[in-house]
């Protein structure tokens, strides 16, 4: 049954034939998309610790069954880990093709357990004990050190430029949900652009119009493609395709966020609220890869969240704010099909503060390691992005 589904998925997913290890050395044209799951998603039910009896004791109502026990069982990844079953068609084929990896025990040392505070600190990517500079996000610093053949064009797929992309580099932002309302036609746009030609804002105005036109085209194309393919045409599943259509030609470093992960109450298990969110996310990421087409082998997607959730379920069949989380890394040429980074057995005694996943793979070290592989950054450049951080050697690429 599972095997048949996998084969069908492989046949239906042309991107898998694009594989190949093109990442032997840093190369021009690299694409990076960071997906921020705001609200702290329950990573423990995404990457299920199927080897841990303690997991099944801790989550009597929420646990995902061990592989093979039922149709709603976890999908086996290795002896220790399984994947949430709703990702069988979207993400499992990528994992098996070596294009998806997970980094458990990832996160920040920020212990506030406040969404608002921790999202900020992660996006800034600065040392926790230093004064915060709210005008300097880590993705903007990355863009600022990339120059020459590697010069990267940044973009935020959000209503406002997020903290991670704030800084010295100018970053356009595109919000698909407010696009197309009150648009100006080509003649009107030109008249307005001409007003600014001789002013200091001439370039920004021109870029603003150009990006808008491309974004509108991408939005329409993705919708057309979707209606022909009978895939989900809403939410992130649609948005991710639109993002890909823009990123494959026009932008190199992108950021998008998805809310709705703060599952304190009734989050469900193999089915239910969280399962539906995973379905939408998985379809979106698979669609993104597909739409990137020839650029997919040069692309890396990292899915992150501010922190994890409590290892044990709470009294409302949900989970509360925790600490360590699980990052996803996807890409056409990554060394995937593996669970990466420092790990440890999940037992009562190894939980952080007797409640949460510990953080063993600090996020700045993870990103620093990834960036140095993707872009071949010198230690001086890396230091400008993450001051004083030693890159992890996870061998993602």
């Amino acid at each position, binding site marked *: 049954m599972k095997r048949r589904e996998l084969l069908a998925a492989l046949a239906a997913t042309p991107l898998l034939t694009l594989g190949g290890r093109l990442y032997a050395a840093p190369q021009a044209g690299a694409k990076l998309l960071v997906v921020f799951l705001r609200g702290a998603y329950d990573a423990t039910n995404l990457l299920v610790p199927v080897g841990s009896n303690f997991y099944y004791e801790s989550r009597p109502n929420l646990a995902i069954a061990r592989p093979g026990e039922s149709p709603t069982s976890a999908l086996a990844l290795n002896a220790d880990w399984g994947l949430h079953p709703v990702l069988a068609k979207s993400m499992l084929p990528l994992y098996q093709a070596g294009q998806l990896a997970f980094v458990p025990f990832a996160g920040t040392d*920020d212990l506030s357990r406040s969404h608002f505070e921790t999202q900020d600190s992660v996006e800034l990517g600065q040392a926790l004990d230093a004064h915060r500079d709210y005008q300097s996000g880590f993705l903007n610093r990355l863009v600022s050190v990339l120059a020459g053949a590697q010069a990267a064009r940044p973009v935020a797929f959000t209503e406002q430029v997020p903290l991670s992309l704030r800084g010295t580099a100018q970053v356009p932002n595109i919000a698909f949900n407010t696009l197309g309302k009150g648009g100006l036609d080509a003649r009107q746009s030109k008249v307005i652009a001409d007003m600014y030609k001789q002013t200091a804002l001439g370039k920004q105005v021109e870029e603003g119009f150009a990006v808008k036109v491309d974004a509108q085209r991408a939005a329409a194309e993705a919708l057309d493609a979707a209606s022909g393919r009978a895939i989900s045409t809403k939410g992130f599943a649609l948005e991710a395709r639109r993002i890909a259509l823009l990123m494959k030609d026009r932008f190199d470093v992108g950021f998008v966020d998805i809310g709705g992960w703060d599952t304190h109450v009734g989050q469900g298990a193999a089915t239910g609220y969280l399962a539906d969110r995973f379905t939408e996310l998985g379809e979106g990421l698979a669609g993104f890869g597909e739409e990137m087409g020839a650029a997919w082998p040069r692309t890396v997607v990292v899915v992150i969240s501010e922190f994890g959730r409590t290892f044990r379920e709470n009294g409302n069949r949900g989970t509360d704010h925790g600490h360590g989380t699980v990052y996803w890394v996807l890409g056409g040429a990554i060394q995937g099909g593996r669970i990466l980074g420092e790990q440890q057995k999940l037992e009562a005694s190894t939980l952080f503060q007797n409640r949460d996943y510990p953080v063993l793979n600090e996020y700045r070290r993870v990103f620093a390691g990834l960036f140095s592989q993707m872009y071949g950054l010198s230690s001086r450049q890396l230091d400008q992005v993450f001051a004083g951080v030693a890159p992890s050697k996870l061998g993602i690429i």
Partner: protein
Amino acid sequence: MWRVLAALPQKKTLPRKRLVRLGAVFTAMLASAIMLAACASNPPAARNDFGPEGAYAWVNRLSWGANPASVATATKMGRSAWLAQQLHPTDRVLPAAAQAQIDAMRISKEPMPVLLRELTASNEAANALTDDAAKQAARTAYQRELNELAQQAESRALLRSLYSPAQLQEQMTWFWLNHFSVFQGKRDIRALVGDYEEQAIRPHALGRFRDLLGAVVRHPAMLRYLDNDQNAVGRINENYARELMELHTLGVDGGYQQADVQTLAHVLTGLGVRVQEDDAKIRPALQTQYVHTGLFEFNPARHDPAPKTLLGEPLKAQGLGEIDEALDRLARHPSTAHFIARKLATFFVSDEPPPALVDRVAKAFLCTDGDIAKTLKVLFDSPEFSASLAPANNGFKDPVHYVLSGVRLAYGDRPLEDTGPVLGWIRRLGQPRFGHVAPDGYPMVASAWNGSGQLATRFEVARAIGTTDRGLFGAAPPAPPSLSGPWFSQYMAPRLSPATRDALAQAKTAQEWNTFLLSSPEFMAR
């Protein structure tokens, strides 16, 4: 909906910075001595007319945007009388239709303590439910109620900003809200922001800085936002203490040290929020110190009574009095005068205000014991301010200013029937009221607001304003505004570049003409 519970980070000060700060405090103290010695001198008499740039430029700068009615009023009154009226407003009457909208709001009918008690009760009831679906539904309803209260606060502020004759007071209300910024998304602050603006900020926006500071320090919105309601002896939370000095008074280089942050955190212990109507039970010896007014509470049992030294001098008073003594010291500190003066000059004159102007404004602040209106008068009477009114020296509007000025120009005193679309534009442009997550407030400089996405979206907003967006006036929208009349020719046309005039000449309809005017570089200028 996220629940935001925990504290902001506890930042450490680097030793090197401390040295810089010590230097700064010494300089500031020296400057203060010089300033105080010079307090008696009289400023040069200011001219009574509006000068070469005319009433339009003055009104445009001191209001949320010039329009025919406001420029006519200023012209009739003359500069001195008009400026005095703006600095000491007596007329705050809104058009009846706008006032009626405000009167109908729940935040106008129910006092904040009542609102918060009701909401807290429904939240507790929701959490006590045992059925998952019912609990989820009750929690969603609770969140929706909170959202509505914050939305009402935004709507009320918008109506005042657009239609109040006390325009400078409205701008200054925004300025101080941004200075004492709170974020509505944290905890239940959405139920508190309306009262925060109405009671703590607006009444003091042109008054004494010390009164403003005192009102903020006692308001539950700020006490919640910067976690001081969790700051108690034995469980110190430095969050508010740090921001109170760094962002609200002395400024980051204002001469305080980590030890001062710690001391101020201890001073602020016991200052908090009590939702319940009854008083906390206090042991008899401390009862006389206990204060519980509305939601504000000073609980002496949570206060650290140990003797303290702040900024090198001991504090003499006890309990709540000690807090006031500390606030006096901070509000009257020369670093505060300089920090506030620079911010005011940045807001009203230039992203990089001339240091000599900042010094003069700081001196006025110190000499008047932080009288905001008198301090502003010195700023507005300065030659640097007059020079900044020339088109070539104008700054760049931030999103709020851009949207408000467009709506004021296009629709004058005809009140919006639905504030939703305008609030939506401000949100899309990234500057919703009570919407800045961090305590530092929105940036004031042009570079924060002139990115390509921002500009492209502004042009769409220009089109929506210029063509009478259908949502603004309900079922019977007025004809599109005609902005190209004689008033435009007299006041705005002389300030336009040849390129902008070319663009206007290419407009095919009145709506398009409006769109081009509102999109022009000149209309982006503050």
